[in-house]
């Protein structure tokens, strides 16, 4: 039997896991913004070094990271609206679960087609035989 000296993970429900996801996406977005402020500030130092930094972003791995960023931002934004409604709207706590499910549907509707168009160019240049 596996020993778990630190105790088991608390088994929370939708509310807890949406909070965990909100934290994680928030931290990810913070790191992106940190890098983004630095690279954008570079344009005041020297436009040519700005260009060369931006050129390093033009590869498939950064493209995948961009998709991840969009997914994180969209979730964080939608869940932020949900949390605001839980605190401010009188019936917010009662409908927190329904709001989360709605949020996930909206998230899928936005992120799945978004990811398709964001990755289209990469797949065409990597594997495409056209042109």
């Amino acid at each position, binding site marked *: *039997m596996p020993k778990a000296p630190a*105790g*088991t993970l*608390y088994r*929370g*429900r939708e*509310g807890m896991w949406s909070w965990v996801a909100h934290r994680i996406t928030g931290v990810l977005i913070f790191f992106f913004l940190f890098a983004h402020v630095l690279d954008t500030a570079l344009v005041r130092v020297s436009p040519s070094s700005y260009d060369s930094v931006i050129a390093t972003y033009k590869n498939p791995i950064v493209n995948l990271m961009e998709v991840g960023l969009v997914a994180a931002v969209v979730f964080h934004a939608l869940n932020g609206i949900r949390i605001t409604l839980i*605190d401010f709207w009188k019936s917010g706590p009662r409908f*927190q679960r329904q709001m989360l499910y709605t949020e996930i549907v909206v998230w899928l509707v936005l992120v799945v087609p978004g990811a398709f168009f964001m990755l289209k160019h990469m797949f065409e240049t990597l594997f495409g035989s056209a042109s």
Partner: protein
Amino acid sequence: MTVTDDLSTTAPAASGPTATAGRTVTLKIRRFDPEVSAKPLWKSYTVPFDPSDRLLDALHYVKWNLDGSLSFRRSCAHGVCGSDAMRINGSNRLACKVLVKDLGPEISIEPIKGLPVEKDLIVDMEPFFDAFRAVKPYLIAEGHEPTRERLQSAADRERFDDTTKCIMCAACTTSCPVFWNDGEYFGPAAMVAAHRFIFDSRDAGADERLEILNEREGVWRCRTTFNCSNACPRGIQVTKAIQEVKRALIFRRF
């Protein structure tokens, strides 16, 4: 009468006492005894059970028949005293309110999280009670003392009915991720106690309590994870109560 006939023919074979007597369940209990070892460890016990047995009955079986050193709190054993809150299969429940048959072949049992463990399933509840005392959970009245009861309409009583149900078992406070990481946080139970008086029409201490909960470690620390509402054995909508205190703080000045 056909119903009775069916029962008389099938009952003894399928669901009589002999059919269930052989069923057992494994209790995986997180043991800790500072006099033996500084480290907690998991110990498993195999316990027979009936479909009507609550988890508390299974724990009694362990203590009375298998290992007398097991320690846990319980008093009334009927979900009223709030002594036996523990983490059962990962979430906070009262051992006297859950049935063994609903919990699966292996049940993990741990002390509630975020309070110092004293031995096995017993934790030091003092920090929890400190937070409770800090919100002044008693009637604060002003003016002359009336010569008869302080009357209240049914609607006014209904306003805070939900939060009167609290039995102070600490299942909510110790299910809260904010409380695990910040022992100074008042925690859901103290806010339930405050809510019960803040929205009581007979009470005059609402502003005082709202100021206390407006502090750094007050309601604004709540991250609405709803763990407290899910854990409450009395079905109190704890997160909603905290939200109502937040709303009172936001909207009272307008």
